[in-house]
């Protein structure tokens, strides 16, 4: 991702184009160039996204146990099984709670970080990198660190050591679901992993807010700080915020890695994907029911995304600002 710092919105893109001789070969055919550039991506998309989706669709109408090339057609049985399955339906509830919490929190934290980093006079690049780095860490690796060193249930776990100084008993963070400390572990891991990436998006957007707006606001008597932030910065970030929320929502729907590693063998705190994994796709190998569940989930994600786009005016272009 480039985090370009161009401020001059009015500058036409071609103003400084070099007068060099145009290279004929590449400009030969617009159609050819179109396929040249989109082709590899489209092929990947077709092989790794659309084929599996269609295959799932096909599988979901069959009894596909221990095979992905089944022959016993069962109609909508798999769908009935998944939709009447309390655990699967319950996991959709889990997701809602999780999303309702993680989306605003991540949004606020990354915006906060972006504002802080954007304010820095020196070492900005350093801090930007420091906050961005966790994005490059794998969810699995992070979960293991969280599970085994920070939130380990024994006395020498980091959190228990710290709490021990204040005389608090050891807490089995991930084992005992009452009280549900596991959410603290999951949310903190996810915040640490995700915030940096969205911070970069916010920094890019912040740097695109024209200084003139702040000057004008200041002349009109807006106090720097909260008032300026509320009336200038936040509205200007609306488009970015919408996109960030959308991405966060999809990411929350797709939550799997850290849940799987932190909450293995539980019946609680399972997002839909994990439920699918345990109910059908993992060790049970019931690929028919699993595919049905996956498709139900896909439809849900699409519906929610479209609805959110409608509500927040995403993708409507300039006039939505």
């Amino acid at each position, binding site marked *: *991702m*480039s985090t*370009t710092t*161009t401020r001059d*919105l009015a500058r036409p*893109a071609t103003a400084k184009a070099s007068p060099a001789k145009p290279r004929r070969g590449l400009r030969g055919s617009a159609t050819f160039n179109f396929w040249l550039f989109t082709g590899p991506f489209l092929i990947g998309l077709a092989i790794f996204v659309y084929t599996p989706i269609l295959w799932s669709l096909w599988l979901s109408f069959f009894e596909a*146990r*221990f*095979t*992905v090339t089944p022959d016993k057609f069962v109609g909508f049985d798999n769908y009935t099984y998944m939709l009447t399955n309390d655990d699967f339906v319950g996991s959709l509830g889990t997701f809602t709670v999780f999303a309702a919490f993680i989306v605003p929190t991540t949004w606020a934290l990354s915006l906060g970080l972006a504002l802080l980093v954007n304010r820095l006079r020196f070492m900005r690049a350093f801090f930007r990198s420091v906050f961005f780095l966790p994005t*490059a860490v*794998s969810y699995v690796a992070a979960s293991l660190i969280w599970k*085994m060193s920070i*939130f*380990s*249930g*024994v*006395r020498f*776990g980091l959190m228990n050591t710290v709490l021990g100084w204040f005389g608090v*008993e*050891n807490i*089995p*963070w*991930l*084992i*005992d*679901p*009452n009280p549900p400390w596991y959410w603290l572990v999951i949310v903190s891991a996810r915040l640490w992993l995700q915030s940096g*990436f969205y911070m970069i*998006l916010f920094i*890019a*957007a912040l740097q*695109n*807010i024209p200084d003139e707006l702040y000057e004008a606001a200041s002349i009109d008597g807006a106090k720097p700080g909260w008032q300026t932030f509320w009336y200038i910065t936040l509205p*200007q*970030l609306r*488009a*970015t915020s*919408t*996109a960030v929320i*959308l*991405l966060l929502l*999809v*990411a929350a729907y797709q939550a799997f890695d850290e849940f799987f590693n932190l909450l*293995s*063998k*539980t*019946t*609680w705190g399972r997002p839909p994907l994990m439920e699918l994994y*345990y109910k059908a796709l*993992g*060790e*049970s*190998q*019931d690929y028919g029911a699993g595919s049905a569940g996956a498709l139900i989930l896909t439809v849900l994600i699409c519906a929610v995304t479209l609805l959110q786009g409608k509500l927040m005016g*995403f*993708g409507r*272009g*300039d006039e939505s*600002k």
Partner: protein
Amino acid sequence: MSALSNSNWDRRTVLRAAMGLAATGGLAACGSNTGRSSGGSGKSLVQMFHAYGEAGTEQAIKRYAKAYKDANVTTQWITSADFESKLFSSLLTKNAPDVFEFHPQIQMIKSGQVADLTDIVEPVKDDFNPADIKSHTVDGKIYGVRMIDDPQFFFYRKSMLEKAKVDVPTTLDELMEAADKLTTGKVKGLYLGNDLHNVINPMIWSAGADTLNEKNEIAYHTDGVVEGIKKMRKLFTSGNLLLGAPTESWDPSSLNQGLCAIQFCGMWAMPQIQDALGDDWGIFPFPKTVDSGKQSVYNGGWSMFVNAKSKNVEAAKEYVKWLWIDQKKYQEDWATSYGFHIPPRTSLAKTATKLKSGNAAEGVRLFNEFGHFDNIGWTQAMITALEDVFANSVRKSMDPEKALDKADVAVNRELKKLFG
């Protein structure tokens, strides 16, 4: 990329951002080592093992494979926690191993995933522990070769029990009492694993029940089991259990490092425990869940199977026969040189001197006296159903009856698909 110079997000920009996100994680998934080497002389076979915890095991398995002359055998060594999923998913593909270790489960036979090994086992059938033959037999055909038997029981620190004036428990109530007395500031009384799932079956057996009965019907849903679950819940909330330990219960580290006084583990851990604790340890079977029950030991273990869909079924069978039936030296090495396991071959078990004395001999006695073997009709989906019962009613406070009813639905669905 000038798209970001304008703060308007259109669909394309979002897509690009999403791709950026995906790229940070997605790349790790690329590339896989199937362990299949191209070239080399003769046939190539791939064998899949879960990662044994003891030092030297991986080298040993590779050393045996290397000694085999008729095929070039490569080894996939899979981290324990991922083994089942990795095995099951790779069995669907062309990269499936030709030979793999697992436990006997009937769904693999019904779905034609494992090959019939009757012709290689039959000639030496009488030299195997009859229970190990029975647990691998469906309709008169034998589908796997048992490599090792692994009884599971409790390990305890003698000195700690003496200090707390606790006798070796023979009932679950006594075990709970012992856990309470043994818990001090730094040491928890008892470790059953972080999810407690390893004691599910022993708890059922010790309550006088079973997973399935002879007719393959549910046999675990009894009053004794309900009482057992309630007791386990009490134990879980007592604060006397070690929870959230860094290692799972198959690894003896928690006991060795003094995190707990009693730990549920398996025979394999004996050499490690001996090294760490000297003679300050003993073993006992899972105590009686209810007074009418009987102490029990789960005789787990691992068996070799041949992938029925492999291109080299015959070669794979030859290899399994060579290593796990003919090469008794390797079998003994495998059973006693790393972790301790009981050889399923009676002739080997008789001569395995390391299992003749001390706690190892006691382990063999418990195995013979209290042991319950795998039931081939008890499959992964059913195992998961009972794990859910423990999660719901022991770690959470759901009514055990309700949790068991829920498991019944799942288990019956499986039974119906498997046995009609």
